[in-house]
């Protein structure tokens, strides 16, 4: 395998993309009609790519495991999408978005990719509005913005607390339009089980029809993996129940390097775990930190109700530690600070693993403004709170309702109790500037790739990246590969490589069904999650990671000898699907620990306890670790590290400070 080449175009940072795009080889319209592209996943990245490629004239097949492409987990994104529009006239620019993203990622992302992301961010908003996505507006009829963490401008566009839903439905409607015209063949309730490689190039996939259980072979001149992130390796996360790493992991096992697997985002504001039965965790959008203040009591083990704790006995620890950014520090910083307070014994609620997110101060402030508008002078507190509540309701109503539904407590009356939870994975398949993995013809888009967020993603940047990759990057960059594939005739799916891949997938399924052990798939998934959360979660250390690797190896053996998968292969069998996904999570978990153990520094979401400043901040080691760790698979969990050096030519690398 040749050394890693990120294929970053020459030239000035601000001109790389424009120049490349203008000089990229093209495929003429009549040739496009005979080129087939497979897209795995139908979230923001997959749906936007499939729709756009079909609009351009390619023959597209799109696969998703859900019953409709509209249910991909992008739908659950709440807060918003960033774009350097500078509509608020607050000093935003492409450069500032680029800079914030690199800094937010703790200087572990590739400059050229991030700059391109910032450049196309504006086009995304234009495209979505043209599709009829009802983003929030002001009374003047123009688009509204709000603030998100790690920035000091207002560049986040939103649709109440349902931004992901609205953007996905926009991409979905474009996709359905192409399906209706017969330009995209949609395969719902299908799961990709392998990539087929012929003469070193990705040439198709093996997919399982989840209803009939049949294995299918599909040819493509190129294969795009847009299957999302792997947060469910922790069992409990804010991901959907079905979110999985299988497509990306199979690609990895077929030769695609896996980049920075240990970079996991733990989101600071989620509803705390309520009991052993818990199946998933629910996020409370970062946008709430616009108006919610985070605090814990100053006294340890304080059992008073929050309303009985006077102002001067509260510790607004984010405002205390980070006066410049306050409650809007990036997610990794906010999560660690919450953990620090709870570990020190200041946590609240039954489990003591929670902090308050309190809207009282801003509700009152909004109420005062409303009172003025209504010509009520010197309003009392009750009036302010009543009027302010209406404002809060308009901004965050659906989130407040969701919180109440889950916890049984009314957040208009009591502060929310929140705690960090696994939310997003910055790591993923390693891709070059063109989004191609180390396997020619195999691409990775959106959360499934590693490329743009470094060691920590800023809020409202996932939607931006997913749509940037799908609408504005891959449609251009794929041309440079496909323009050389014009002579490639569709390969018959009777080719030995297809037969072999199908047989391997079938053997794995048969194995699951034949073990007939004593424990359910969930049993193993929960156990894996516990190891990962305790030893490869918010804080990691060498000893813990070494232990975790051993524990995961033991768990893997136990899984393959004692799992019980009921039912048959020839029917709709969700337990069988889960078994395949958990088997892959177990292997990935081990690689995550290996990567975390290798990275002897702290950066962004990767916090090694051995490497911190006296104030407890992440301490990077730029001399030795300013690289992307890209892992190559060698069978039976043997991995080899390849390094892509990160060069910062436009940004001065510094200790990240939000003080």
């Amino acid at each position: 395998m040749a050394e890693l080449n990120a294929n970053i175009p020459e030239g000035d940072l601000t001109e790389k993309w424009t120049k490349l795009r203008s000089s990229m080889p093209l495929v003429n319209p009549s040739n496009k009609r005979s080129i087939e592209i497979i897209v795995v996943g139908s979230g923001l990245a997959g749906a936007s790519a499939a729709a756009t490629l079909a609009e351009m004239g390619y023959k597209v097949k799109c696969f998703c495991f859900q019953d409709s492409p509209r249910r991909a987990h992008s739908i659950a994104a709440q807060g918003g999408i960033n774009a350097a529009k500078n509509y608020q006239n607050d000093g935003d620019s492409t450069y500032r978005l680029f800079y914030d993203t690199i800094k937010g990622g703790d200087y572990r992302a590739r400059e050229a990719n991030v700059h391109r992301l910032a450049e196309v961010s504006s086009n995304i908003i234009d495209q979505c509005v043209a599709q009829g996505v009802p983003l929030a507006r002001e009374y003047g009829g123009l688009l509204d913005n709000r603030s998100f963490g790690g920035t000091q401008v207002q560049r986040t566009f939103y649709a109440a607390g349902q931004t992901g839903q609205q953007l996905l439905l926009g991409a979905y409607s474009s996709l359905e339009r192409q399906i209706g015209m017969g330009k995209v063949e949609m395969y719902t309730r299908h799961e990709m089980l392998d990539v087929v490689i012929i003469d070193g190039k990705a040439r198709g996939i093996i997919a399982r029809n989840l209803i009939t259980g049949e294995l299918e072979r599909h040819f493509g001149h190129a294969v795009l993996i847009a299957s999302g992130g792997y947060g469910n390796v922790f069992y409990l996360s804010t991901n959907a129940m079905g979110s999985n790493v299988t497509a990306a992991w199979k690609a990895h096992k077929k030769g695609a390097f896996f980049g920075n697997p240990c970079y996991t985002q733990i989101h600071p504001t989620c509803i705390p775990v309520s009991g052993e039965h818990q199946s998933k965790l629910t996020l409370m959008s970062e946008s709430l930190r616009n108006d919610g203040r985070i605090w814990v009591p100053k006294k340890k083990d304080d059992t008073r109700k929050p309303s009985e704790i006077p102002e001067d006995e509260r510790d607004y620890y984010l405002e205390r530690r980070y006066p410049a950014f306050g409650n809007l520090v990036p997610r990794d910083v906010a999560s660690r600070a919450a953990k620090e307070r709870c570990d020190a014994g200041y946590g609240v609620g039954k489990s003591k693993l929670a902090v308050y997110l309190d809207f009282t101060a801003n509700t009152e402030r909004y109420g005062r403004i409303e009172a003025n508008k209504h010509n009520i002078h010197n309003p009392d507190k009750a009036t302010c709170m009543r009027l302010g509540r209406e404002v809060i309701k308009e901004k965050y109503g659906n989130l407040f309702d969701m919180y109440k539904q889950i916890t049984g407590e009314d957040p208009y009356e009591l502060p929310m109790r929140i705690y960090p939870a696994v939310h997003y994975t910055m790591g993923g398949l390693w891709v070059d500037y063109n989004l191609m993995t180390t396997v020619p013809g195999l691409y990775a888009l959106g959360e499934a790739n590693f490329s743009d967020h470094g060691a920590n993603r800023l809020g409202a940047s996932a939607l931006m990246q997913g749509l940037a990759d799908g609408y504005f990057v891959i449609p251009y960059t794929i041309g440079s590969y496909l323009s050389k594939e014009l002579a490639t005739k569709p390969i018959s799916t009777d080719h030995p490589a297809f037969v072999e891949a199908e047989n391997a997938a079938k053997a794995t399924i048969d194995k699951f069904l034949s073990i007939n052990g004593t424990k359910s798939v969930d049993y193993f998934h929960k156990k894996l999650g516990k190891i990962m959360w305790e030893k490869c979660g918010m804080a990691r250390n060498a000893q813990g990671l070494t232990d975790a690797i051993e524990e995961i190896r033991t768990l893997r053996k136990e899984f393959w000898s004692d799992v019980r998968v009921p039912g048959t292969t020839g029917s709709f069998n969700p337990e069988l699907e889960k078994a395949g996904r958990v088997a892959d999570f177990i292997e990935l978990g081990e690689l995550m620990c290996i990567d975390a153990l290798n990275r002897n520094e702290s950066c962004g979401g990767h916090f090694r306890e051995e490497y911190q400043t006296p104030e407890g901040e992440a301490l990077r080691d730029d001399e030795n670790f300013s690289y992307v760790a890209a892992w190559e698979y060698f069978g039976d969990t043997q991995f080899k590290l390849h390094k892509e050096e990160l060069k910062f030519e436009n940004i001065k690398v510094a200790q990240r400070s939000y003080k």
Partner: protein
Amino acid sequence: MSTENMNLTLKVWRQTDNKAQGNLVDYKVSDVSPDMSFLEMFDVLNEDLITKGDDPIVFDHDCREGICGACSMYINGRPHGPKELVTTCQLHMRSFKDGDTIVVEPWRAKAFPVIKDLAVDRTAFDRIIAAGGFISVNTGNAQDANAIPIPKSQSDAAFEAAACIACGACVATCKNASAMLFTSAKISQLALLPQGQPERYRRAQSMVAQMDAEGFGNCTNTGACEAECPKGISLENIARMNRDFYHAKFVSEEEV
């Protein structure tokens, strides 16, 4: 409303596949925490069935935060159970009490055939969207997002219609198995926005035609769909759709 752990009896629809005859099967579930969601209670039951060597109950679910629209149980005669504006995944066991018997069935509609147990095929909804539930704008064609100001009230109304999650509760609860609330929500969203105007009447015709072709029933203004919709989609949307449909038929018919 229970705060203590509960013992419950479930009557659950079991059906091995599309062609098989289904029936209700009784299950006992004990020690159910009021903090559990309805689906987590099913997880516990399934774990128990797997350990015993039985076939677990199949049901659709994914995000478990009320937005993907996958979950779809008909609980005690109501889609998504007894609470208003809530999907099954967000229904918590504190809404039930110790000793309750709960009947759980799949969505029932000709256009939503049962796949297995509680999971049904809702791809008809995708085909209705594919028939016209979009604005024909290719990537790269867009002008600046602020070029056309849209009054906030109009944009908010479009958003309210766009909040539909395509779960199918409206169809399941309707005595005619009508998909008019679903179809009209998309037609309304786009009809309320300036970007949706060029294809407005064409869209209403093609989407309604597809809705009929899928075998959904007609609307007789009972309003059950609005009452049961977990996202509060309003009946006004149906009125708007009908208006656009008739306008298309009698005023400006276009070939579609």
